[in-house]
């Protein structure tokens, strides 16, 4: 399977099928990102569509220092920001910051995994986090980006991205009442088992 970078090179040489492959690869994760900022799926799809078109038009500017995925996420975040400005005009929402927009969720959705009050508490606490901490947390936990990719998307050093994530997690730990949901003992056993396995492998 070709790498993103190989496909980008082919797109630059005029191969649109390679761009089609890039769209296939990344449209789901980009749609998920879009749905965090837009409650309506159609609006999220618009963000994805515009982001890919911009990526195609600007592909000569992609230098390959960051991953294509990180670059695409940067474009999508900017697109979402502009989209909100376009949508709400220059009135009360003129100064809207995409990082201030609560993550787009359906308050009535049922996950079946958490009591709604705990889920609401977590969402509320996430929304209270400073922008960059919330962004690092969102990109890491919900979007499964590596710290390197988060740093690229946020335009900051690796250690800063990691520190933002760490501070976010520690704040949430202090603020969220884990209560009956604790699974500490179970996790500790898992860690010991995993660590011991590696110790044995190294010793052998």
């Amino acid at each position, binding site marked *: 399977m070709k790498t993103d970078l190989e496909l980008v090179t082919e797109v630059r040489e005029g191969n649109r099928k390679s761009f089609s492959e890039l769209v296939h690869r990344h449209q789901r994760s980009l749609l998920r990102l879009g749905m965090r900022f837009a409650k309506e799926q159609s609006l999220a799809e618009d963000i994805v569509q515009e982001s890919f078109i911009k990526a195609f038009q600007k592909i000569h500017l992609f230098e390959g220092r960051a991953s294509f995925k990180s670059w695409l996420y940067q474009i999508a975040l900017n697109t979402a920001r502009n989209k909100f400005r376009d949508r709400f005009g220059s009135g009360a929402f003129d100064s809207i910051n995409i990082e201030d927009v609560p993550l787009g*969720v359906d308050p009535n959705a049922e996950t079946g995994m958490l009591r709604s009050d705990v889920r609401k508490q977590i969402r509320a606490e996430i929304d209270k986090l400073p922008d960059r901490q919330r962004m690092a*947390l969102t990109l890491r936990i919900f979007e499964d980006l590596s710290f390197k990719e988060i740093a690229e998307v946020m335009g900051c050093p690796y250690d800063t991205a990691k520190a933002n994530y760490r501070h976010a997690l520690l704040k949430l730990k202090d603020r969220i009442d884990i209560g009956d949901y604790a699974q500490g003992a179970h996790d500790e056993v898992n860690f010991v088992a995993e660590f011991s396995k590696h110790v044995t492998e190294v010793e052998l």
Partner: protein
Amino acid sequence: MRKKFVGLNDDDWWLDYLEKQVDMERDVALALACNKSLQSGKVNKDRDIFLRQTLGEQSALKNLLEVRTLVKESDEVVLPEDLRIYDSLHDRIMAEINPAEPAMGGILESRGYQIES
């Protein structure tokens, strides 16, 4: 890119462990190399003591995995399952870019040519 391994008492290492971004085999080998008692003949007994101490020292981080799990489970964004949505989205994107030729200036610029306006 990642900070140099300094031992299992390093908070950053635990964060990497939490995020599954450690090379466990390499780091365990380094930890063993740093801990002489683990290199002695009483490996099993010392390993248990070492693990218990390490876990105990990391009490501030022990609940992070639980918090992470709760945060993850609080995510209510659900991607559509209907594959036709993605096909349609893909087709719309490709339809938008297909009529347009790639910007020649951009291609030439990317190859180091200067474009005069």
